[in-house]
């Protein structure tokens, strides 16, 4: 089965009485990076989790080429779709290698063992994120940025056509933010993956995403190319903050600058 796309159709998720995701429909095609943006609590993480099939869905469907994703057993799902979770505390005692080889779970033989082929794929994934030289170190000894790269390597080791990332740049400095976003774009544009990435930084989204989806209070406010979605009106309204949107001095992308009028902070 050749997977071409990740398609969400009218996805609705509730936490108790609260509507966390309200009728979300969007499509992530292979070869494209779709950035999810929106203020805190808008449902970005929930959308990533729901799309990965680990949340009970109130209504709506997740499809990968016709097949209904949520009805597949976890092992088949893990062959279609990999997730880089939001910076989490990883078990510190595992080595980098032991952590990344867990990405090979859906391909284990019936005795739960990995093969030489798995080793080769793990080595390639570690090379990809430039972490092969510390493969034998314990995860607990790594910096936050290095840990984030290990999580990406683990997702790559799953060899899936679809990749979801939940704010992978949150704890990275500028250098690593750029390096990570470049790798992610390569994965989409050269390796033909379908990538959906939740981002806080609107300028990273503007720079690297092919499509931007704006979530506000669980609803999909807008989806389209960065220049279409990242307008001053939309952003000001979504974030309750006046912004300037100016053209990037060197690139054909918008640049978002918050305007701090010197008023008292608004935490509503």
């Amino acid at each position: 089965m050749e997977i071409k796309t990740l398609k969400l159709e009218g996805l609705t998720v509730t936490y108790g009485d609260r509507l966390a995701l309200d009728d979300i429909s969007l499509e992530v095609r292979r070869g494209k990076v779709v950035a999810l943006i929106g203020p805190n609590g808008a449902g970005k993480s929930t959308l990533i989790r729901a799309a990965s099939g680990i949340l009970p869905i109130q209504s709506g469907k997740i499809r990968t080429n016709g097949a209904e994703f949520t009805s597949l057993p976890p092992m088949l799902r893990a062959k279609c779709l990999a997730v880089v979770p939001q910076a989490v505390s990883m078990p510190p005692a595992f080595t980098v290698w032991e952590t990344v080889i867990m990405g090979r779970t859906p391909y284990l033989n019936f005795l739960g063992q990995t093969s030489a082929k798995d080793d080769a794929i793990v080595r390639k994934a570690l090379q990809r994120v430039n972490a092969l030289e510390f493969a034998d170190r314990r995860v607990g000894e790594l910096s936050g940025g290095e840990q984030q790269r290990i999580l990406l390597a683990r997702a790559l080791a799953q060899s899936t056509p679809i990749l979801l990332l939940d704010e992978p740049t949150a704890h990275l400095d500028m250098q690593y933010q750029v390096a990570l976003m470049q790798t992610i774009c390569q994965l989409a544009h050269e390796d033909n993956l379908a990538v959906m990435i939740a981002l806080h930084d609107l300028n990273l989204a503007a720079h690297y995403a092919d499509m931007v989806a704006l979530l506000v209070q669980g609803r999909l406010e807008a989806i389209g190319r960065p220049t279409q979605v990242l307008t001053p009106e939309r952003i000001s309204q979504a974030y309750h903050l006046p912004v300037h949107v100016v053209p990037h001095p060197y690139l054909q992308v918008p640049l978002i600058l918050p305007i701090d009028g010197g008023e008292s902070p608004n935490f509503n």
Partner: protein
Amino acid sequence: MNSILRRFLPFITNLGMLILAVIFSLAIGSVLISPENLWQILRSWLMHTPLPAGLETYGFIISDIRLPRTILVLLTGAALGGSGTAYQGLFRNPLADPYLIGVASGGGLGAVLAMSINWSYTFWGLMAVPLSAFLFAMLTVLLVYSLARVGKSVPTTNLILAGVAFSAFATAFTSFLIISSEGEVRRALNWLMGGSNQSSWQTILAVLPYLVLGLGYLLFNGHALNLLQFGDDQAQQLGLPVTRTKTLLLVAASLATAAAVSFSGIIGFIGLIVPHVMRLWWGADYRKLLPLAMLAGGSFLILADILARIVLRPQELPVGIVTALAGAPFFLWVLRRTKTQGYW
């Protein structure tokens, strides 16, 4: 070459320790059998030749007394080491041990209940205590599991709390039975401290199926336990059917523990410290940790059993006393020496 050695070093070390422990256990006892004689007896068995003159008694002591006892102790230690590792991984809790969700207290209650009845000295009469212990241990696990369940999932916190609460109840009930009955208080106390070594080839055959099933399942699920260390969400995103795997792991570990406990009594501490010592020495990968903890649990319990046999000769100590008396200082020594932080 170097990497191959590094990969197998833990196993070679642990296997070597186990073989040494077995040899000591066969040689040491109320009569000391010299290594030379031990070798002669072993060789005549392997070659199917008659025992050399004068060694028939030693041969009998080994084949009918020390060997079955050593094997039963080995199996018990392996079960406690292996299931302790599994429980710690399953609950992601360094304080978890094989008895956490009530296997011990349930089994203890079953054993003491059976002891309060005067059974005749037939086969079934002798098997009444271990059988009752086993049944109660498994019933406890089922009860605790169903009490802790919320819908389709079984939250770890619920499981531990239900286990602890039910354990308190069963322990209190056991104490009540011991105090209110007139009969064999000493035997019951002995059992509760891990001193009920009913070793014979028959008992080994009786526990073996459960241990093979339980420990065998654990051995093939090291990878699953590794995944569970990342939490249920990530484990599922990586392709693990989480609820099913956790349930089966729980059943397998409890099965092995219950089988071991029912014939050897409640032996504390070993299922807690052996996994930690292995983790400190050889790393956190459960694929290695499980077999290593089984080997180490076996050797450690054999050594403790030797001590239990000789310290108060001719009387025998319950081995549970030795595992805690000797094991706690040993564990603290290992913990003190360790240089790495965050080994857990």
